[in-house]
């Protein structure tokens, strides 16, 4: 073989190797670029929210920018003092904690009945529960308001809490999880003289912590972020929740975005903390319930 042939073979091999590398790396790079662009789009409004909350008021309407160049921490103090936020936090905490507690108790009881007990009409009743999961909130909004008004609950915690104490989604989530727990455990406990309620309390619930965590986080996020229902059933400013507080704040200042965003950042923090604390169990709970494949 001549030297020329060897060189051309070598260069062909190098070109082939390069082409292979490029054909492998090009889609990967393209995909990663796409992902980063997507991630950027997700982060962009969030970053904007934080940046705006730290801007000086006079720069509110200046051309927008992404990274904070000023750090007006005082905006947070002004936002906090602009409305009775302590009261709003208290109201929202009472509402969210009551809803979470209520849902954990009532949904586990109902889910246990659907998962473990046989009684006439069980399947039909469960399907009816599932059906209510799909009803958009605004469909029942007006009659629900009329009932709450008829009960004299306007401007009370009952109005904020009671309609949210049970959720079809919660019952569904827990029922699916309970079904994954082997019945032999129940039977062994029953043989040992444990009551049915004891089985639920001592066997099923301790083994269902991931699903209970998932439900707790879901219901907390929903309650904490709820806007429309508290808006409708409260008129007294002292009964309002954080989300309504932000809206009131908006009106009071003719939308001073810096303060509004400072309030918004503050209102989002508890939800993020709750999720970070329970995220591992939350994902486990979602993965092991009926939402799996």
């Amino acid at each position, binding site marked *: 073989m001549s030297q020329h042939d060897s060189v051309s073979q070598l260069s062909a091999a190098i070109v082939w190797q390069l082409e292979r590398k490029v054909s492998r790396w090009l889609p990967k790079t393209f995909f990663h670029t796409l992902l980063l662009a997507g991630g950027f789009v997700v982060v*962009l409004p969030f970053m904007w*929210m934080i940046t705006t909350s730290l801007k000086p008021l006079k720069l509110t309407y200046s051309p927008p920018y992404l990274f904070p160049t000023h750090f007006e921490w005082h905006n947070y103090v002004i936002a906090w003092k602009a409305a009775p936020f302590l009261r709003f936090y208290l109201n929202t905490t009472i509402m969210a904690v009551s809803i979470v507690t209520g849902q954990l108790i009532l949904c586990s009881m109902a889910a246990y*009945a659907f998962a473990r007990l046989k*009684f006439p009409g069980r399947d039909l009743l469960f399907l009816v529960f599932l059906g209510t999961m*799909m009803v958009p909130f605004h*469909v029942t909004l007006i009659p629900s308001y*009329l009932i709450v008004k008829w009960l004299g609950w306007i401007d009370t915690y009952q109005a904020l809490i009671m309609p949210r104490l049970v959720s079809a989604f919660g019952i569904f989530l827990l029922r699916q999880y309970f*079904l994954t727990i082997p019945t032999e455990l129940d039977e062994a406990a029953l043989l040992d003289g444990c009551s049915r309620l004891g089985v639920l309390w001592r066997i099923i619930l301790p083994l269902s912590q991931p699903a209970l965590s998932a439900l707790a986080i879901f219901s907390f996020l929903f309650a904490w972020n709820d806007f429309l229902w508290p808006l409708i059933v409260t008129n007294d400013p002292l009964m309002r929740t954080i989300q309504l507080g932000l809206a009131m704040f908006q009106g009071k200042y003719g939308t001073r975005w810096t303060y509004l965003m400072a309030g918004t950042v503050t209102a989002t923090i508890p939800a993020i903390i709750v999720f970070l604390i329970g995220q591992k169990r939350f994902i486990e709970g979602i993965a092991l319930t009926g*939402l799996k494949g």
Partner: protein
Amino acid sequence: MSSGSPVAKTTIEHRGRGSREWLFPLLLLLPAVGLMLALYAYPFVSSIYRSFLVKGEGAVTLANYAKARQLYLRDILFSLEVSLLSTTIAAVLSIALAAYLRMATGRIAKMVGAVYRLPIFIPFVVVAQMMNTFLAPHGLLNVFLAQLHLIDLKAPLQLFNWKGLTFSFVWKQAAFMTLIVLSGFKMIDDSYIEAARSLGARLPRVIVSILIPMSLASISVAVILAFTSIMGTFTLPYMIIAGEPTTVTVDIAHRVTYFGDYGVANALGTITYLMVSFAAIYYLRYTVRKSIYEVQEG
């Protein structure tokens, strides 16, 4: 079926005699059923019933539906189109993202895994406020695109319409959908994916032939919950859409606030439910087809 299997017979026949047999399930269900009947089922039935009543008249008529059709047909179709489009885009994005997070390892995957969840925590009302300025003619998005020389700020993108609304819905819902779809993907055994890969299947093929078919239930739940949520959202279209057409939820609020017209508002609500119920029926049929009880009872 073996005792360790998650689908082992999991329903125990309630042991008891006579009336006591009924008592325990009844006691367990009573609070939930009572609350659901009083604060959910009754309002729902009442809403449908009231949609057939005209103010000041006792007779049951279709007048509210005729009026709703005459005044809001365009908005009804607009709501359906935006909801379908947003759900479809969010579903495609969430499946792609979930597949990536299921298969990829490394720093970028971890970072993406942490970032994508952010919109879950932000309530619709805050998303609406954010998007209201973010998508404005001289908002951050337009300025950013202008700096990349993709648009001219003298003729900025007009996004206070279906485009901005769809963007906002996708931004908010894709994260939640990804969470549910990813949980489904995580339940798939690695051996299936490795087997496909060893036979030469590339990522798109693995997604289409393994991940999606084996996670149809979680994808369906994610799609239906997102669709229902989008159809029922008020604050986002209220704050983003300038002019017409707008969504049914805004029309309901408008009808009640300015006209006190509960009849047409209820008719619009019922029409929305009918649109959503197609998704509900599909889901219920799917659940029934999977024989929710028979399968578990083995």
